[in-house]
């Protein structure tokens, strides 16, 4: 898993004040409103995914991608509301940002045993130790966020190390979330730092991932190629409601 939130050279003081005074109205309310509804859907999919993983040993890929995209949206929103980046967070699971990016490589298999262990004992061996550490870290993050607010207001600069620390808190929490929602089998490390082993597989996986799916889709499309001559990237995707 890689989470990167860009540290800007300079931050807009005007945006900072705008976010502080009106952020609840124009950022918090609309995003949280939508995230809550889509979160219900994500929760339903997560619950069903538990059973799918239990019986098949793999997380449905499109559901996995949906969950990651939703986390991406949530991170865009959180980073903005925490003043880690300027700008307005894009709405929607398909929204993108040039300052905030979350990448999680899709695991072909998920351990069924671990799924049961996590469900039964996750609160003890994951939530409790990480929760205690994160609680203290979040306190520190809160203090730094307040100090950084003044720093941005007076100097237009968010101290680099504070920024890294606050992003690290988000990254750590996200790792715990990924583990507890069965999106990865890797036990979360007790650190907020970017891990080298996280970055490497994703870099390798990104290029072949597109290649892997494309031929598979092409294989399927001849079955319906007459009906879908115009499929492009979707390749392979048929247009069923053409009638």
């Amino acid at each position: 898993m890689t989470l990167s939130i860009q540290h800007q050279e300079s931050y807009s003081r005007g945006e900072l004040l705008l976010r502080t005074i009106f952020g609840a109205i124009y950022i918090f309310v609309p995003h949280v409103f939508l995230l809550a509804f889509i979160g219900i859907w994500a929760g339903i999919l997560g619950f069903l995914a538990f059973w799918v993983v239990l019986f098949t040993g793999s997380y449905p890929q499109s559901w996995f991608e949906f969950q990651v995209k939703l986390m991406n949206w949530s991170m865009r929103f959180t980073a903005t509301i925490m003043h880690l980046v300027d700008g307005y967070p894009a709405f929607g699971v398909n929204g993108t940002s040039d300052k905030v990016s979350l990448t999680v490589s899709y695991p072909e298999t998920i351990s069924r045993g671990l799924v049961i262990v996590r469900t039964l004992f996750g609160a003890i061996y994951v939530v409790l130790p990480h929760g205690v550490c994160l609680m203290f870290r979040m306190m520190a993050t809160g203090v730094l966020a307040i100090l950084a607010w003044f720093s941005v207001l007076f100097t237009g600069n968010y101290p680099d190390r504070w920024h890294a620390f606050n992003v690290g808190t988000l990254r750590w929490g996200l790792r715990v979330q990924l583990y507890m929602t069965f999106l990865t089998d890797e036990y979360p490390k007790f650190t907020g730092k970017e891990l080298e082993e996280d970055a490497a597989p994703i870099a390798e996986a990104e290029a072949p991932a597109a290649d892997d799916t494309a031929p598979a889709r092409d294989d399927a499309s001849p079955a319906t190629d007459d009906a879908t001559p115009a499929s492009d990237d979707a390749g392979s995707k048929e247009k069923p409601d053409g009638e």
Partner: protein
Amino acid sequence: MEGHSTHIALPQPHEIPKRDREDAMGAYLMMFAAWGAGLPLPLLNLLAAIIYFFTNKKTSRFVSFHAYQSLLTQIPISILNASAVAWTLRNLYKDYAFSDYFWTYFIFIGLWNLIYMIFSIIACVQARKGRFYYFWVFGRISFARYFGPDAVSLEEKEKPNLPPEGF
């Protein structure tokens, strides 16, 4: 080419990507959505099936077929369940007696749900294998919508995926 009235071959299991098979399987799991939400509202399953259908209808025909069939089968069962819930609530809040009619209906609903669950799980497993599975009536309606009669002439009888019987 005009429209899609030309040949539409049925995709066979080896031609269907894993992702599509998983998505098709997911359609039948929507019957458990209310459990996931933790709310005993039968219409939630129907709502989930509708959302799933609309989010997947532009993927492959295979997925759309299963999502549509799942949605159609949810409609009668959701109505039956909703009426059972409404009847129960009415009796509870208005202090009416739980008559024999009520219990008969309740048992009927229970059996119906059990049968529906069994067939849905079978459909779920078949979909994940890349196979078609046709529910009574709804299978034909869904097949007609996404493949139509032209699919029939193309199929050979030994292929795993065939149109519904007598289509």
